[in-house]
């Protein structure tokens, strides 16, 4: 099927054809759109604008940016392709979508890389003007895919966006190069029309963003408008309608997992009434948290970009010793370096939060790809018997709550707390209902005062936590260290019975956290039955959606149980899981939670392990669940 290349249409507003009536738009419950282009094409920016417009349209949404592997690859090559995917709909959206329904490919390399994920029969919009011989060659095409049948089976819109954009921006005195850089806004305008999005806020955004250069404001706006008008008047683009989703009333913003997690640490420290100290070292994909923290000096946050990962953990420990909430953050390779320091925090019983934004390992692995293979590291990665609390966030919005919880537990029990996130959560975004701070229950951390009469090593009867004795407090001067210490006096002790007792106390303190974390609930499905699928971290989205789809189709005998707390495990988890004939653990590692549950609960859990650097797809989870339910649809 040859693709028609459309001649430039007039951009005169007055001659615009009547817009498609709302009722003639095809209703969709949800849609997945993927923008792709060269890293210089403004794809991320385009995706973010579409996200904002979609949020304002009232849809629920989830986004995922797919950054190129290199900082600046040679233009037009496949490893320079940058993509942005958004899943949005009239219902709860839990993943950024298995496969796009609409693919916008601004250059041949983008088409080459992204076409395989497009749904059969999906819409592909290409800038035919960017498919010259030289561009094709750079992308690795022998022949033009627009003419050789590659695009058979899809709805193809091959539009000379390059030429149309240059036409639209001509009156505004921009160079050819500048003009072509407005192509993304042209494409955005078209996609806005296809999904009936209000482009006014984007026009306002352009005016602010390029306020220093009015001709760029005019050019980008003209491109945006031209794309939109093309949609209206050419009548070749499909038109859809996606109704607002039932979101809880409140004030919203879009937040990535990294942002939400950082907000959670900030709010957590505020609720604890202790200053926040954050130390980390740049590492993909955790650096955004450092960048955010660095911008909060005016709020009293102390941020240190340390000289290395170990220094970051140590500085955070020093900060906790001095009375702050010490937080250190990294990804796998950096967390591995922090092991000894975390052991010191265990031995000195200080409130330290360790954030691990997991990525594909081992060693350098795949820094920009997601995985959840650091659970073992979090649970066991210290020499000696050094138990810590381990939590995991399940989505960008949940990262806020998990971070607040991490601070709460760290201060209540005077212990290091691991907070596991991953590259997907960190970069994905979803609408986040901004909490009213006054509605969040505070958990003020108390510093030991001289009048308490407490000794620095005496434990709280309920939590087994040491008091927080902070330098500067008169009359309580004491010496702390990593050497084993006497249970009561805190003096260095090599006494055998004391070491046995201290080892048991440290374990008992962490086990006792179970009393403060509530019982494990069921995310969906029956309380007993044939199959329970257990997950942790970002697999929540695909598992939840897959289970939901099965339930909708009448396959009701599958429950989804998703863990936030990995250590200690919730008290009722064993009895909860015992109610199912089969427990299937789905995770993005080789079975780390599966092995944990088998060992701790004496449970014959089976596993599905995906270690591909990609999130699970809803489709594959459905297939796995059906397989374990004994086949048959």
């Amino acid at each position: 099927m040859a693709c028609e290349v459309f001649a430039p249409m007039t951009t005169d507003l007055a001659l615009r054809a009547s817009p498609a009536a709302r009722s003639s738009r095809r209703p969709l419950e949800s849609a997945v759109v993927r923008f792709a282009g060269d890293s210089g094409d403004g794809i991320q920016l385009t995706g973010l604008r579409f996200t904002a417009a979609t949020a304002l349209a009232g849809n629920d949404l989830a986004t995922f940016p797919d950054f190129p592997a290199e900082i600046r690859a040679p233009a037009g090559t496949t490893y320079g392709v940058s993509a942005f995917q958004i899943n949005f709909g009239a219902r709860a959206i839990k993943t950024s979508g298995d496969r796009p329904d609409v693919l916008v490919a601004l250059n041949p390399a983008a088409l080459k890389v992204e076409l395989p994920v497009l749904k059969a029969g999906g819409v592909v919009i290409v800038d035919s003007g960017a498919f010259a011989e030289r561009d094709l060659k750079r992308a690795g095409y022998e022949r033009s895919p627009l003419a050789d049948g590659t695009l058979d089976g899809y709805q193809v819109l091959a539009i000379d966006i390059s030429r149309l954009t240059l036409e639209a921006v001509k009156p505004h005195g921009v160079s050819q190069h500048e003009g072509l850089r407005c192509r993304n806004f042209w494409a955005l305008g078209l996609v806005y029309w296809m999904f009936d999005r209000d482009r006014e806020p984007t026009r306002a955004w352009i005016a602010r963003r390029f306020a220093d250069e009015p001709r760029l404001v005019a050019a980008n706006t003209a491109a945006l408008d031209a794309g939109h008008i093309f949609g209206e008047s050419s009548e070749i683009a499909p038109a859809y309608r996606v109704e607002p989703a039932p979101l809880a009333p409140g004030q919203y913003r879009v937040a990535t997992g990294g942002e939400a997690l950082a907000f959670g640490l900030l709010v957590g420290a505020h609720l604890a009434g202790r200053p926040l100290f954050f130390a980390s070292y740049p590492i993909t994909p955790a650096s955004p948290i450092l960048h955010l923290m660095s911008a909060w000096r005016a709020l009293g946050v102390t941020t240190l970009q340390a000289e290395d990962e170990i220094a970051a953990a140590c500085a955070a420990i020093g900060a906790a010793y001095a009375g702050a909430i010490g937080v250190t953050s990294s990804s796998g390779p950096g967390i591995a370096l922090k092991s000894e320091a975390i052991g010191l925090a265990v031995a000195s019983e200080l409130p330290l939060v360790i954030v691990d934004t997991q990525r594909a390992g081992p060693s350098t692995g795949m820094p920009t790809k997601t995985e959840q293979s650091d659970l073992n590291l979090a649970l066991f990665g210290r020499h000696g018997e050094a138990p810590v609390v381990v939590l995991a966030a399940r989505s960008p919005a949940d990262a806020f709550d998990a971070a607040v919880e991490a601070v709460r537990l760290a201060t209540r029990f005077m212990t290091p707390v691991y907070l596991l996130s991953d590259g997907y959560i960190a970069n994905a975004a979803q609408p986040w209902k901004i909490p009213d701070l006054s509605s969040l229950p505070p958990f003020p951390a108390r510093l030991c005062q001289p009048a308490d009469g407490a000794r620095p090593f005496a434990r709280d009867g309920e939590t087994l936590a040491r008091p927080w004795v902070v330098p500067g407090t008169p009359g309580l001067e004491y010496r702390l260290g990593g050497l084993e210490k006497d249970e009561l006096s805190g003096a260095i002790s090599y006494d055998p019975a004391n070491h046995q007792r201290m080892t048991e106390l440290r374990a008992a303190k962490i086990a006792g956290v179970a009393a403060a974390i509530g019982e494990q609930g069921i995310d969906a499905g029956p309380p007993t039955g044939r199959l329970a699928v257990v997950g942790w971290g970002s697999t929540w989205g695909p598992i939840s959606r897959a289970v939901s789809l099965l339930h909708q189709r009448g396959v009701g005998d599958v429950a989804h149980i998703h863990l936030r707390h990995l250590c200690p495990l919730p008290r009722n988890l064993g009895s909860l899981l015992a109610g199912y004939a089969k427990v299937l653990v789905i995770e993005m590692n080789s079975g780390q939670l599966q092995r944990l549950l088998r060992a701790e609960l004496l449970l014959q859990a089976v596993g599905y392990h995906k270690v591909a650097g990609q999130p699970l797809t809803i489709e594959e989870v459905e297939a796995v669940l059906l397989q374990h339910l004994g086949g048959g649809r």
Partner: protein
Amino acid sequence: MSALPPPTVTAKDYASDQEVRWCPGCGDYAILKAVQRALAELGARRERTVFVSGIGCSSRFPYYLATYGFHTIHGRAPAIATGIKLVNPALDVWVVTGDGDGLSIGGNHLLHLLRRNIDVQLLLFNNEIYGLTKGQYSPTSRPGTRSPSSPEGSTERPVSPALFALGAGARFVARAIDVQQKPLIEVLKRAHAHRGASFVEIYQNCIVYNDGVFAAFADKANAAEAQLHVVHGQPLRFGAGGRRGLALDRKGLRLVAVTVGEDGVTDSDLLVHDETNRVLATMLAALERPVALGVLYCEPAPVAATAATPPPFGSPELAALIEGRLRRGELWTVGDAGATPAGGQPR
């Protein structure tokens, strides 16, 4: 803090109840005494004083002082001290380390603490050996040092702690000998007074694994000819009767030892110590005979303007600031009428 007059204290007031366990004759005893005396002379408040150490014989130090103390992990005391000082700048933080703890595993952290000019006093006990782990050679051991891990004699070039500190950008570098109480106490007090990272190298004798390694300049018999006690504004004199001194060989850009009255050398040929001169400090630090002791370099950085203090965590004022940040950017409100843009701050 109210301006109370300093309490009348003695060195004993800073001693903890712990029995000191270093080897009899170890130089650390002398250093401990000097530190306790210095604290007393400074009227240091125990509750505001923190000693942070790493691992090694040196690092047992905090246990013997009745102040706050944190015995941390090998090489990392500077990083931990950085966290402490950044959170509570009102604390008086001392870091105690050794040549192994501070220049081997801890070299990187020492470099950055000095570079960042964190306002702590860092005492490096240099005994040119690993004591606690039973005698291996260290980064400051002389070539040829025989030890359990260098049975044929070490072949590595040692690093000079003072030169390292200057190279890292330290603004206060001083040296002392463990048993010379008065000069050591003086250096400790000067270090304390300096605003910024104060690096003090203390030649410390390890009586068990490296006894007498500094005898060539530290022994009483050699002291006059082999020790140069520098004083800002005073000529660089040493030797019996102060007749010897340092002059500059212009051609070779070297310090040369000269004798006043010989070869036409007069008093005016002698260099005068200027502790704000980094080039001079570097040359003094590199001198092997005589060994320069005292405050080699002291040039405080300009004091940065203090930023406004934010409201404390937990306060309603901070809650308002946090709310403002959460609600920065593009917002929308979901109500009964669907989504409407809300008045957030543009990014």
